[in-house]
């Protein structure tokens, strides 16, 4: 599992003007276009591409793409 690829997939759930602002350590909820629909799309991407279902209350504790990436890696171990 590769972090750069993950961050790109994460970024792709945002609208165009925010995609370039998404890097591994960005607090994604502070991005302008962040909303619950983006959140759902991220969770759906994680389910589809990494086979992991992150529950909403767990997701609320994760604040950067890197933290989500680490969470997925921990679950997979």
């Amino acid at each position, binding site marked *: 599992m590769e972090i750069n690829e993950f961050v790109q997939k994460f970024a792709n759930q945002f*609208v165009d003007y925010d995609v370039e602002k998404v890097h591994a350590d960005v607090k994604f909820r502070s991005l*302008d*276009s962040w*909303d*619950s*629909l*983006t*959140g*759902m*799309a991220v*969770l*759906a991407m994680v389910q*589809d591409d990494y086979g992991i279902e992150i529950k*909403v209350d767990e997701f609320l504790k994760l604040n950067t793409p890197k933290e989500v990436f680490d969470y997925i890696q921990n679950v997979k171990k």
Partner: protein
Amino acid sequence: MKTYIKSISYYLPEKTLDNITINRDHPEWSIDKISAKTGIINRHIANTDEFASDMAIKAANKLFSEYNIDPKNIDFLLYCTQSPDYFLPTTACILQEKLGMPVDSGAMDFNLGCSGFVYGLSIAKGLILSGAAKNILLITSETYSKFIHSNDKSNKTIFGDAAAAALISDTGDYSIADFCFGTNGKGAENLIVKFGAIRYKNDVASDIFDSEGNFIKNDACLFMNGSEIFSFTSQAVPILVNETLAKNKLSLDDIDAFVFHQANKYMLDFIRKKINIPAEKFVTYIEQVGNTVSSTIPIALKECILNQNINKNKILLAGFGVGYSWAACVLEKNNGKIS
């Protein structure tokens, strides 16, 4: 023998609700951000004294006059609504009389939302192929606005009212090929108006808020769990599309246009990319009407045939949502005139 969608018309109530008004009523709601995501700028809202059956009549009369159809030639009415006039009698019986349909015709209501038009096509096809009827009027009509609480800014943003009327017959422009269906009652509570029907007929509901004072729901009003619906849709719809293609012995590339239930633009775009449907084949028609529930597909189909400049020999329709209920089918162009 084949069955065909011969013609479609639709009716939108005169009153509109735009984003400026929603923003004025809910200044904390970043409507621009939301409308950029949902793709909705305007919705039509039925008047206080205008009901789904009234809109159904208007849509049907538009169909009759646009296409020179005599209601006396209709032998079956299928009426799809979740807003019947009464528990009984069947609203379709009332429509029969008001539309001037003959007394030796059949008429029935069926209660479905977002999947309703596709289910309606399947019932119509069955009636025609069995020889039970020849000219079927399929009407979808919905007034979700009457279920939505004044504090419910999310549902206010998404839903619009509308009615659509289609003539299904044994001659026409688009033949109706094969269907796939899906149902999962596990999703029942995720899109629901809980009180008011028989199970909770006289129960009194109260407004429920979260710890920050945000309105969550009122059981007498429409409740939608957006994240559950998104999750269900993103799982079920790709499977539905693949199964429907397989049943019709077609590949994704064979389809010239995809007309999905117009839930909201962001979710549709997500699903489109997941299925790998090219953007130019994917019909969206939501900006000025919102999510009109069972009428989204016939309205988008009408606009897709009339206004879009793409080759449309094979069309895939997919409806999905409240229930959970879902269904898809393929339409194939007859080599005749397009309506």
